[in-house]
Every structure is written in C-alpha cells, then in structure tokens.
C-alpha cells in the first residue's frame, strides 16, 4: 500500500461532499495542516458502515492544524494545534491545486 504523504508534508483537507457515514469532521474541511505521522492503513469506515468489508485499505494520517488557521478569532497560544486522523482520500498536497481522486 503506497502512502502518498509523509510526516512534514503540508496538506489540505478536501470537501468531498459525501453522504453517509464519514469520519472527517466538517470543521477541518478546506483547512491547511501538516502531516504529523502515518498511522498505518485501515478499511475505509465509509464502506464498513454499509457492510462492505472487501477493502481496499486506506492510509490514515495524523494531521496537525493550527488553531488560528481553523478559527479566525482564536485567542490562545499561536502554536496551539489540533491533531486529528484523516484518511488519505480526503487529502491533497497543499501545493497541488488539482482535486484528488475520490474513493
């Protein structure tokens, strides 16, 4: 399973406009973050939620977002970060304007 991203990469969370069960919260979509680490690959919960256990597995990453980037009026330490797990198909490289393929 080839990972597209590595720790330190700058990424953007896509808004895939998907219905059904998803694990990418609204508040991080369209926001810029940095890959903290790879977490391995797992079956896609969007598929598992409808009983599809066939796979493929999808790489999962921990991504860090600055609170000031998520919330315009954030008042705290500018280095405060929100760390969350994002599946690869929800991400594109920050410097790549073309949309990633949807799963």
């Amino acid at each position: 399973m080839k990972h597209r991203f590595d720790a330190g990469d700058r990424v953007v969370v896509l808004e895939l406009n998907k219905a059904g069960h998803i694990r990418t919260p609204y508040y991080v979509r369209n926001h810029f973050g940095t890959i903290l680490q790879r977490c391995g690959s797992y079956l896609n919960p969007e598929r598992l939620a409808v009983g599809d256990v066939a796979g493929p597995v999808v790489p999962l990453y921990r991504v860090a977002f600055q609170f000031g980037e998520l919330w315009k009026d954030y008042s705290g330490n500018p280095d405060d970060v929100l760390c969350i797990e994002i599946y690869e198909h929800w991400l594109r490289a920050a410097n790549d304007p073309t949309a990633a393929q949807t799963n």
Partner: protein
Amino acid sequence: MPDHNHDADDHHHDHHEPLVVEDEAGNIEGQILVDALQNLLVRQNLIAPGEVRREIERIESPGVHLGAKIVARAWTDQDYKMRLLADGKSAAAELGIAVGEAQLIVVENTADTHNLVCCTLCSCYPRSILGQPPAWYISKAYRARAVREPRAVLEEFGLHIPNHVKLRVHDSNADMRYLVLPVKPTGSENLSEAELTGLVTRDCMIGTSEAAMPQA
C-alpha cells in the same frame, strides 16, 4: 463560512440538552429494549446468555488502574517511556495490558506542552484500558467546544494553562486512541512505582487535570 446545508435554522445546533440522563422510566425502558433485543438474538442462536454475561464482566474490568500502571512505569523507567511513546499498544502489552483498539498513541505533557483528548463525532476513548469515559466527555458541550476553545474548557475544569504553554488537542475520530502521559508531580521523587499509581487520575490521562501530590 459555507452553508450548513440544513433546512432548519442554524441556531438549532446550539439547542442541545447539556446532558440527557434517563429518569427511572427511561432506564426501565432501556432495560426492556435490550432484553427484547437479547431474547430475539438468543432465540436465533446468534448469541448465548452466558456470552453476554461474560462480555459484561470483560468490559467492566478495565479501569483507571490500568492507565495508572502504565503512567507510573513511564515515570520511573525512561526506556519504557520511550517505547511507550513510540508504540503504546506494545508497551502496554509489556505490562500485561491488552489494548483492544487499533493503536494507542501516548502523548506526553511537558513543561511547555499540554495535551487534551476528545472525540467530536461520538465517544471514542481508550476503553480497553480506562473503561468507560466520563459523562462530560461524551456531552455535546465538550465535543463541540474542546476543539474550538480548549483553554476556556480547561478553565471550567479548574485547570489554567499559562499562555506560554502550547496546547495540543487530539480529536480521536478514527482508529487511534489516545492517553495523556501527565507530568510527574514535583515532590514525588521518593515515591515507589506502586505509590505513584495512586497519583494518577482518569482526568489527568484525558488532559482535564494534572497529577499532583495529595494535599498534606
């Protein structure tokens, strides 16, 4: 900010009960519903009553004591701590603690970093180690605000994080589970590992509290 794509007014988002707690009638109804479910499943030989009883015992057994054991070991053994931070599941297994979730990520509090764990989408929590999450952890207020104004949330728990300390909030939304490794309290230098476990509370492993020596 993009539209929420709801027909109802946005202010409905704000109108959640602080905590919905069943009254006696509600708990009786809950018992009836789960018994009805169990009866139907048993009748179809999908589960057996003995299995349910054993599974209840199994899920009752983890608790704060398991997390405290991990923390106390990390406080007293630097090499163990490094292994714990690299691979929480394997390090827990060294102590005989079986982590049922995909992976355990242990996040270390330091003099300049404080960690806080939440799950905005539901109630993900390291249950196989710590047992059940507290009611406030699964409340709508905590889920909504921990990722928006974490410092204000911590103030409500009586925890003031100085502004020079960086905050890391972890939203456990997928396959990882998180445990905060609190700072070892000053004044605890002469305590044994067993005594140290007594200083580790549930809330300091979630991040809404810090470990402290008991008041004299």
